[in-house]
């Protein structure tokens, strides 16, 4: 607050938008909303943070049982339990982040209809909340990995890079879904199913090489998450595991995944930017 009345100059008001309104405010808002939501979800309840751990751990326990005792895929794969755990935690981030984002803009209706602020903050803050959760979970996962007897290698340093790619994909998907949901309410149901399909199309329960069919493997590798998860497994847990490029029979076969990755990001950014100015009217 200044003691002197400032002389204010007329400036054009551009209306609502996806970004806009200054970089500092954008990041302040993003951080604040992400942290607030994180605290609310994980520290607001009695069981708090433990609650968020229960879900992936339970899933892990069930899948571990099924795939080592019933269907014996896991027994042939070295370090299968930690591989599975890491995969589940990473995919849970993608799934939870996108799923929560779908309804995020509509859920914040009261704020959107009464305040001017960069609309992009809403889905991104939701993803940020999931990211906080992931980082906490990863601490536990890495304790498991070390306890299991996996030795740290220099390739662990590559992990944050791969994590960044997953975060970017999650954010772009969230932007797309959140703004589509404003107009099409069945997006939530469609996405819930698609995310489930995606889970089985990503090498989490099984290694890609189990297919023994290069065409199928190449098809699986169109899913951008597949090569990323595969490389993470190689970098963090099993250095001997085949790289995505070698499974597909050449790095060139990873281009569809790269193209899809870029396409999702571009489409997410484009459609959010296009629809952001009119979100308040559609609600």
């Amino acid at each position, binding site marked *: 607050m200044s003691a002197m009345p400032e002389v204010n100059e*007329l*400036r*054009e008001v551009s209306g609502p938008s996806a970004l806009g309104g200054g970089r500092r405010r954008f990041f302040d808002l993003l951080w604040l909303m992400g942290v607030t939501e994180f605290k609310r979800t994980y520290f607001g309840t009695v069981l708090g943070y433990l609650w968020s751990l229960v879900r992936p751990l339970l899933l892990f326990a069930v899948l571990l049982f099924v795939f080592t005792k019933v269907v014996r895929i896991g027994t042939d794969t070295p370090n299968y339990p930690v591989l599975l755990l890491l995969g589940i935690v990473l995919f849970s981030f993608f799934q939870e982040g996108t799923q929560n984002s779908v309804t995020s803009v509509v859920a914040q209706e009261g704020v*959107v209809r009464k*305040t001017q602020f960069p609309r992009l903050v809403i889905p991104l803050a939701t993803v940020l909340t999931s990211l906080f959760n992931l980082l906490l979970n990863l601490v536990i996962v890495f304790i498991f990995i070390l306890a299991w007897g996996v030795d740290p290698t220099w390739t662990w340093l590559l992990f944050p890079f791969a994590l960044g790619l997953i975060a970017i994909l999650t954010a772009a998907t969230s932007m797309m879904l959140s703004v589509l949901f404003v107009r099409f309410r069945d997006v939530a149901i469609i996405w819930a199913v698609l995310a489930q399909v995606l889970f089985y199309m990503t090498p989490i329960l099984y290694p890609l090489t189990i297919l023994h069919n290069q065409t199928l493997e190449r098809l699986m590798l169109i899913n951008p998450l597949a090569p990323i998860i595969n490389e993470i497994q190689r970098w963090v847990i099993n250095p001997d595991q085949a790289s995505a490029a070698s499974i597909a029979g050449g790095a060139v076969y990873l281009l569809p995944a790269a193209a899809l990755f870029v396409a999702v990001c571009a489409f997410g950014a484009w459609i959010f930017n296009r629809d952001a100015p009119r979100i308040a009217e559609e609600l």
Partner: protein
Amino acid sequence: MPVDNHIARSLSQHSRVPDATTPLAIQVEGLSKAFRIPTHRIDSLKERTVRMFSGREYRELQALDDISFEIRQGEFFGIVGRNGSGKSTLLKLLASIYRADAGKIRMAGRLAPFIELGVGFNVELTARENVVLNGVMMGLTPGEAGNRLDPVLEFAELEEFVDLKLKNYSSGMLVRLAFATMLQADADVLLIDEVLAVGDASFQQKCADAFRRMKEEGRTIVLVTHEMATVEAYCHRAMLISDGKIQALGEPEEIAKQYLRLNFEEGAASAGVTPKSSGDGVRLLDAWMEDGAGARATSVEQGTPINIHVEIEVAREVSALGVGFILANSEGLGMFQFGTPIEGEDGSDRLRSGQRVRIDTTLENPLAPGRYFIHCGVQRHQAGGEDVSLYTHNALDFLVYGGQAARGVVALPHQIKAVLDPPESR
């Protein structure tokens, strides 16, 4: 806010009434906004795919049509208009919540909106979180926003509920918090939609004081309201909007008069009862409420009698005229009907051409707090029944405030007590 800031502001050039030399705060040029309302709403991807090749049909609703005006710094500017006139759309455009189809808005300084009785809260969060979040949305740093928390809660009288989620707040508490948050935003321009009916009488007084102070400080305030008394009491200038166009802009008294006139005409038309030969029949000149001291008022405290007056003029000689009223609440429920025949001079029931009649009514007031409407009709008794000469829907509206926020539509005078250990029943 520190005291020296007050003084600085009140000593500044803005404290005088803004005139043509005062710099502009808001400049609006050729602003237009239309809403496309689909004749068939498609709200699923499935349907969208099915109807991929059938063209989409829209009904275009022109909410604002080429509006231009200027507001000077330090001005208290009123925007009035009937529901659906476009005034709220205008406010949302000014607040950057809607995007304009055409035209330009220029604004000087920071802006704080207060729209539909709120500033945009997330009800899943606590008051503390919301106030800080709102501050950051307004462009403060998280630290500055945190410093605002205490004054906001103090003004809203909600210190004890700082860590309560807003979904557990009563609507009155929510509005108080929202209003306090807006006041503390320290913005240069305030956009306010329908606010003065907030809370109980003491909080209303607080709001009124805050408004007066902001006016003295030279803040620019744009107020959208139905309350003509507010417009006349606070505004330097006012603007009447009708069908998305500026109908009039000027002195508050003049605008208030025009608004009321517009209200009568449209009200009668929308009620589906056309005044029979309004040229040579009966005309409703005025309808108003008075407080106990005989001054015009738009709100009344619960329990205080309601004084309603209407003035009509007969355009030609008529006989057997009666006037009737319906008191309705904000949900349109007719609560009470009352009326009287009009007696002419020397005991006959004839009224001469051009004669004016004032009807004075006093009603007991057991009404629950809220907004009420008076519909007014003038009828002529005839052999075959009644002939409606005039009917004005919403001839008058007023507010009942105070009391407890009771459930129900009336607060009946009652006695109630609890008897401990009652003697054995007979």
